[in-house]
Each structure stands twice: as C-alpha cells, then as structure tokens.
C-alpha cells in the first residue's frame, strides 16, 4: 500500500501493468520468432538491432503507423469496436494475477474465478470481428472460433475448479484465492496430486489461445487468418497483443496453480528477490512449450477438435471432480488423490491415442444437388 491513499496505490500498480504489457508483447514476439527459427534450423530475425532484438519494436512501429483500412461494406461500429472487446478482458484479467505474495494490483478472494470469468469475454470480440468485416472467410473463422473457444472453456474451468477444491488452506480445504492456493503448495505442487487436471488445463489453454494444433479460427491455409482477415495496422496489432497477453496470463496461471508459483521449492520466506525469478522461470517453461507446440504440430480439423473436447476432455474433467469430491468427503490422504488422478491421465493419453488413430469417418454421402449434375464415373 503506497501512501495511505488506495486510489493512488491502485493507479500506480495499474501503471506498472500498463507499461509491462507492451514490453512483454514485444519481448515475447521476438522470442517466439527466435525459438521457432531455431527449431527450423535457421537464425530468426538478425537484421534490426544487435541479433535482431529491435525487430519486434520495428514491427510495432510499422503496425502503429500503417493505415488501418476498413472495408466499405463493413458494419462500421462492430468492426471498429471488436479489437477493444478482445483486448480489454485479457488486460482486466491481469489485475488479480499475483506474481509474489504482495506483487499484484488487488488480490480478490475469488481471484481464480474472476480471471477465468473475464477471459471468456474475448469470444464475443472475435465473433464481432468476423461478422463486422463482411468477408466470407471472416465469418467462417468467427463461427469456428466461437465453437472452439466455448467448447474448450468448460474443461479449462473445471480443471481449475478441481484444483481449487482440494487446495490446502489454513481454515480447511478449497479456496479460490490464488495467494492461498500457492501457499498451500509449500511441500508438494498440485501437479503431483492433480496430474489429470494439469493435462486438461494445458490442452484447453492451447485451444483458448487458438495456437497449433488448435489454430483453426486463424488457419492460414483454410480461412486465411479468420476474423482478422480485414484488419490491418493498429487494430490488427491489438488482436496480436491480446493473443500474447492471453499467453502470459494462462502461463502464469498454470505455473501458479499447478507448479506452486513462487512457493514450491524455496518456501515462503525467501523474499521477492528469489521468488520473482522462480515464477518467471516457470512461466517461461510454459511459454516455451506453447512456442514449441506451434512449430511442430499440424492443425486438427473442426469436427475432430470438437469431438476431442466433448468426448474426451469433458468426461475426464467430470471424473477428476468426482474423484476430488470422494477424497474430500471420506477425507482420504492426498496420495489417493494423486493415484486417482494418475490413472485418469493414463486413460486420457490412451483415449487421445485411440481417437487420433481412427481414420476419418468416410463421408461418401453426396448431397442430392451435387448428385444431379454428377458425371457418370
């Protein structure tokens, strides 16, 4: 609490975040291009600034100065407000994201719930962008993004809730306050007890960020960038910023909830000097995983993606919550939790494997209209 005036304090902390976001976006953009370049056996940006460090800055300047065109037949206000509806929720979600015990803007008792609830709003922005730009590919992309984000929001939330249920807190179990969740992971991070929830959370996070292998809304080869087709300049830059902010948000959240945040190996009393690098390291681990997935995985098809969410991730999430419920009711030790969750993870891996190996169902059904002009084969 800087000064006794809560408004000043809140304003200052928000200022820190407001500065941190563009810097984080630029750094992540540069790192992503370097990492993917290295995976593809090439150097990545080297031209602007030493080792290409200023490349992302140059891109940002270019995007800001480039004219952002609006198609003539676009639905004016939907088109122009869409980027804000996408960016604002992900920035607002950063408010209650703690980096260390007291390094946050405002820590809410319902921190986890607040973050997940707010970040679902960006779906509306994507659909607005798709509809507003009056372009066939954009509409297709918007419909796909709506379908995908909604169907992967549920497993994401349930995985987080599963962990929140069994979180150890001074007064009993179960809390939505992120700081308490992290405090509870002093000796053992929740990834050990809740590996199935961790698996579901990571896969659903990938889908939330529409990154490979779930990047169907913005598939270049099919819908040419989906809802962002008609955007350019500043507005497109906002969409990209939203994507990177979401990336940071979900990586930090995952490291807080599953890897023990600033607490796990070093304990609580070490002080921010060591805790902040620890949380940054864990987040970097997640971000590296997301970058790597983008470089080496192709894209699923829309029906496979939906089937995977509804037929595999959701049942497993229910199983996880029921298992947690049982453990809480009968007060079994945590080890049982870990075993049940481990069994769930193995089942998940097998289910994914079997589902992916099954050949795509043959749709020889040729609709009547096409049959009429069918050339005799």
């Amino acid at each position, binding site marked *: 609490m800087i000064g006794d005036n809560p408004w000043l304090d809140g304003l200052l902390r928000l200022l820190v975040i407001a500065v941190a976001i563009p810097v984080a976006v630029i750094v992540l953009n540069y790192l992503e291009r370097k990492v993917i370049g290295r995976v593809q056996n090439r150097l990545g940006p080297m031209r602007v600034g030493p080792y290409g460090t200023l490349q992302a800055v140059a891109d940002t300047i270019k995007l800001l100065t480039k004219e952002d065109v609006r198609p003539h037949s676009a639905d004016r206000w939907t088109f122009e407000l869409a980027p804000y509806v996408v960016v604002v929720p992900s920035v607002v979600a950063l408010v209650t994201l703690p980096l260390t015990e007291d390094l946050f803007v405002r820590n809410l008792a319902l921190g986890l719930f607040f973050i997940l609830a707010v970040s679902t709003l960006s779906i509306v922005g994507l659909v607005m962008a798709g509809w507003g730009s009056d372009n*066939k590919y954009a509409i297709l992309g918007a419909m796909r993004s709506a379908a995908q984000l909604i169907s992967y929001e549920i497993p994401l939330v349930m995985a987080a809730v599963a962990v929140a249920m069994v979180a150890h807190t001074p007064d009993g179990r179960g809390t939505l306050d992120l700081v308490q969740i992290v405090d509870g992971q002093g000796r053992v991070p929740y990834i050990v007890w809740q590996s199935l929830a961790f698996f579901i959370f990571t896969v659903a996070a990938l889908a939330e960020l529409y990154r490979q292998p779930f990047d*169907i809304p913005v598939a270049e080869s099919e819908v040419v960038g989906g809802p962002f087709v008609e955007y350019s300049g500043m507005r497109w830059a906002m969409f990209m910023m939203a994507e990177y902010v979401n990336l940071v948000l979900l990586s930090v959240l995952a490291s807080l909830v599953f890897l023990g945040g600033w607490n796990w190996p070093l304990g609580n009393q070490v002080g921010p000097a060591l805790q902040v690098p620890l949380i940054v390291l864990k987040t970097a681990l997640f971000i590296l995983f997301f970058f790597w997935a983008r470089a*080496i995985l192709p894209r699923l098809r829309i029906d*496979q993606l939906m089937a995977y969410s509804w037929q595999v991730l959701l049942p497993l999430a229910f199983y996880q919550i029921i298992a947690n419920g049982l453990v809480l009711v009968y007060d079994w030790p945590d080890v049982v939790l870990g075993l049940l969750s481990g069994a769930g993870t193995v089942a998940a891996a097998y289910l994914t494997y079997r589902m992916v190996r099954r050949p795509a169902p043959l749709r020889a059904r040729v*609709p009547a209209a*096409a049959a009429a002009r069918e050339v005799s084969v």
Partner: protein
Amino acid sequence: MAAPAPEHRHELETIDLYINVGPQHPATHGVFRMVLTVNGELVEDCDPVIGYMHRGNEKLPENCDYRQAIGYHDRTDYLAQFNTEWTFCLAVEKLMGLEVPERAEYIRVILGELNRVASHMMWVGAFGTDVGFFGTPFMYAFREREVIQDLFEAVTGERMMYNYFRPGGVAWDLPDDFEEHCRYVIEHVRRGIDDLDALMTDNEVFLARCRGLSPVTPEQAINWGLSGPMLRACGVRHDLRRAEPYSIYDRFDFEIPVGTQGDVYDRYLVRMEEMRQSLRIVEQALRQMPRNGPIMAAGLKRVLRPPPGEVYARTESPRGEYGVYIVSRGGDKPWRHKVRGASFCNLSPLREMVVGNYVADAIIILGSIDIVLCEVDR
C-alpha cells in the same frame, strides 16, 4: 445421366454459400481457383477454374526452332525442368533416330533423379503448410532443395531454368569436382529426408488429418487418367521407368513404392519413399558412369530438321507421366507441339475427390495432388 432432381431437398431453404478458394489463396500453389458450394463446413459442389496461367505454351514453339523450344519446356513444369527437357529431347531423338552417347545418358539420369527429389521436397514443404505446420517442414524441405540447387548451379549455371539438355545429348560436360559434390549432396539430402520423416510420418495429428481422406480405387484412378504418385498410392504398380523403360533405366535396380488405400496419407508415403529410391539410382549411376567420352551425338547441324513424322514421347516426371506429342513436317519448326501435363490429368477428377468432405479437407486434397499450375494451364 440420371434425371436431375428439380429442387434442393433441404429441410430449411438455405441459400448455398459460394466460397472462392483462389486465385489468390495461400493453399492453391499458384493461380488456381476452386468455387466451393458450401453448406456450413461441408463442401457440396466444387467447380475448379483454371486458365489463369495459360500462356500458349503449345502455340509458341510452333514459331521456334527445336533448340529454342527447350526454354518453353523449362517453363511448363518449373519444378522438374530436367524431366521436361528430357521428354522433349527424347521426342526429337526418336524422330531423328539420334544415338545419345553413354555419358550423356548417365548425366541425364543423375540430374533427372535429383530433380525428382528437389520437386518432392517442394511438395512436402508446401503440403506441410497446408496441413497446418507452422512452416517447419517447409524450412527442412527447402534446406535440402538449396543443396540440390547449388549442385545444379555448379553444373548448368542456373538454379531453376536450366536449358541444359539438347536433342542428342547435353549442352556441355560436367565440372571436374562433380563426383564428390554429388556424394555430399546425396548424404546431406538423405539426412534431410530422415528429418522430415521424424517430423511428420508418425505425428498423430498429421495422421488424423490425412489417413482415410478421399480414398481412390485403382479402377477409378485408371479411368480418371491419374499417373505418378497419385496412381501408385492406389496400389497400381505402374512407373514408366519400369513399365516402358526409356534411356538407360533398365540398368538400375530400384523399387516402386505403392500405397494401399489411395488416400492422402498414402500419397505422402509414396513420395517420401520415391525420394529415397531416386537417391539409390543416383548412387548407382555415379558408380557406373564412364569417366570421359562424347556427351553429344556426332554430326549434328546447328539447326535440326527432323524428317516428317510424329511421336508421343513420355517420361516419368515427379508428378506423373509427362508426354510431348510432336508432329513434324520436315521444317525446322514443329508443326504441332502438344504437351500432356501430368498435373492437368491428375487435377481433372478434383470435383469427385472433394465433394462430401470439409473445406479444410478440400484444401489438403488439392495440396496432395501436387499440381504445378504452369503444367495445368500451359
């Protein structure tokens, strides 16, 4: 022809959404347009529109003499120039009854097979981007293509439009260090193929997208006139280098990879295996090649005048059977010069393959045909 059903039998009268895939589209490998009639994500009808790249490649050579026409063949199939030049030279040699010396034949086989590997590399890269990889197979494939193109530049001087084969042999001899440069290329490319194999072949998501997509039965394939990897993926063991051996292909032993279901994944497997077989052929050719000797048929005039007659020469280009039908009436210019592009025939059944699948699959099926638009439109 069944009587057409007068009206759409849909419950809800929805107008069909026409999506123009192309001519400017990242997945159409050039200037090609598919008008898809889409019901949601399902493709109901597909009308391929070609002709954007039509430059009259069959009319122009009627005004050039036989050496100038070689440039046109480089530009019909710009990924396998050695194969196309070879077909044209074969046609003229058959017309004039020329005897191509040994060393020239071996040079042609080595460069032709390496060109096949370079062309398949281009396909794997482009197909990877279609399926959704973020450019990784593209970079691996192009790293190998650069190596092969450096070899071609050392031999002919050009990276793509070689203009190096002549009716009767090759334009000039190989550089002295060709042998060990070629061995370096083979070893480097073999490692590149293993990289791509590791990246894509067992990748579950890649399998989920490609296995079982638009299977083609052998009878359909033959009736549609498919050739090359498209035909072999359906299980038909037909390769012109083995079925109708031209040049000296009967001296090398190599297998012909064949698929089982004829779907997109089999086409990928056939092309990857073909690359390895081509490298085997190049190694054998390097060993058996005579060190020196003529590389040009003797006694050739500067302007070739084949006797009146006609010939349909064909070779196994990376995309299939590339045929050149030349009618000559004695002059120094061909009277009729028809080019049978392999992609032209492989692309014609696109409508039957695409209808009934999703939009995302239509893009991959188009990518798996490995079309080169200059060969389709000529």
